[in-house]
């Protein structure tokens, strides 16, 4: 080390914060990668998995979603004045259960079903596709309304999964057309700032501009938003929050349980597995849900692709 020399007279070009940044409050989805990433991750997770057949089917569904997500024409941008009004009122601008859908989502559904039908699948799954195609517009719209608003009957469980997948594509494209700096997080931090839906899982980052921060991923539009760690996402309590994991596994997926509201939400740790994808890993870690459910905690909300009778 050289010492005792004359100090440099040049202007200092360093970063006064040392490169440490506050995390971005929300990350809008990219329809070009959102579903392709999930499909690739599901394929790799299916290997030697007890639910391999189902995961491969879901990977093909994600591929079909990808085809629908990149299909022209581009999404119509939502009316900026209405978006601003909702943001000012601290409401989600694309509120899942109030947004007036355009028929673009049904074109997406048709593309998705066409793509998916090319793959081998159980007879039940393909007969549900045939039945869904046979329904008229109003019946399909009613099914979508029931999915978004609640009131879905068990008889529609199969068709609702395809409808949910098409609505994910539609809302993802819509959310991607928003302008992130003009949005705000909701006072209900556990709900999506774009569409007000519940998250599918949380990811604790290990890279990027703010490593270690938690992002919750919207189950419908794929928007990620920042949420303080070690706090229950359902009730906001922090007194009795615990992480439950399966003994001896990688520790990448853990359930954050809360003994105040007796719920849990799944958290994925990038530090343990850099490839985690909230949508894929949630489906591949249902064993954790079963164990935590048997131990007495309820899941904060369903994954829209795995609706279960309550």
């Amino acid at each position, binding site marked *: 080390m050289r010492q005792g020399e004359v100090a440099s007279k040049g202007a200092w070009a360093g970063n006064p914060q040392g490169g*440490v940044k*506050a995390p971005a409050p929300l990350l809008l989805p990219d329809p070009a990668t959102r579903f392709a990433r999930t499909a690739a991750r599901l394929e790799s997770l299916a290997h030697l998995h*007890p*639910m391999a057949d*189902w995961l491969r089917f879901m990977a093909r569904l994600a591929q079909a979603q990808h085809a629908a997500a990149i299909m022209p024409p581009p999404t119509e941008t939502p009316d900026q004045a209405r978006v601003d*009004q*909702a943001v000012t*009122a601290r*409401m*989600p601008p694309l*509120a899942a259960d*109030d947004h007036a859908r355009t028929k673009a989502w049904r074109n997406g559904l048709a593309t998705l079903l066409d793509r998916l039908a090319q793959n081998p*699948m*159980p*007879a*039940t*799954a393909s007969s*549900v596709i045939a039945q869904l195609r046979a329904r008229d517009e109003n019946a399909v719209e009613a099914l979508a309304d029931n999915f978004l*608003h*609640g*009131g*879905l009957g*068990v008889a529609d*469980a*199969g068709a*609702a999964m395809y409808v*949910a997948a098409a609505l994910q594509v539609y809302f993802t494209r819509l959310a991607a057309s928003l302008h992130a700096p003009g949005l705000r997080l909701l006072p209900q931090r556990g*709900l999506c700032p774009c569409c*007000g*839906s*519940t998250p599918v899982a949380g990811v604790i980052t290990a890279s990027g501009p703010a*490593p270690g*921060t938690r992002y919750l991923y919207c*189950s*419908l539009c794929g928007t990620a938003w920042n949420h*303080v*760690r*070690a706090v229950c996402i359902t009730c906001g309590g922090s007194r*009795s929050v615990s*992480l*439950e*994991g*399966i*003994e001896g596994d990688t520790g990448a997926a853990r359930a954050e349980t809360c003994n105040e509201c007796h719920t849990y939400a799944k958290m994925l740790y990038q530090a343990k597995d850099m490839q985690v994808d909230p949508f894929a890993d949630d489906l591949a870690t*249902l*064993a954790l*849900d*079963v*164990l935590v*459910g*048997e131990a007495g905690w309820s*899941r904060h909300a*369903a994954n*829209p*692709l*795995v*609706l*279960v*009778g*309550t």
Partner: protein
Amino acid sequence: MPLVRALAAWHARSASDTRGRLAVELSRRGFIKLSGAGLAVSSLSALGFGFAGAALAASVRSFKLEATTETRNTCTYCSVACGILIYSIGDRAKNARSNIIHIEGDPDHPVNRGTLCPKGAALLDIVHAPTRLQMPKYRAPGSNELKPVSWDFALGRIAALMKQDRDANFVARNAAGTRVNRWTSTGMLAASASSSETAYVTWKIARAFGMLVFDNQARV
């Protein structure tokens, strides 16, 4: 529907939606419990993947849950007071022994945003250091050995010595005869990770003694 009314309706619904639902209804909102039996009435079975649900239920039998707790705290080292997250094993059950297994910077803390200096990053080794001071120890005058003593003895001894020193060296008035009430022969160094309230009380106690040699978090 006008937007404002629609938004008000959304608010009302989101409040009621997070509660439980009627039996045998599927919902994307509201709490659910997944189980092998529950998957029999689900998107899985409706698409002909009921066997996958059964395979899952069977595979789960060999698994066991393991609890970890994340706790927020403040680094003990300096007055910067960085936020830390402490990971411990054990679920706080009565007979389970807890143990700290990992400490990292708190990424949500505005002071350090998840970063720690090398001393802070080595906190786990301090926690588990075999040489860590865990009880008061006393080396009697003339002795070369530190002996464990009770807290009562340690606090009593400190109080007696403080009183002795203050009685001997307290300066009530300066050379000009003005009242100053100074005690300059004893100093106090207080904790770094104090809250505003703790710093306030510490300050009041030290100053009430007339103590001038004093440093604590309230200075920062």
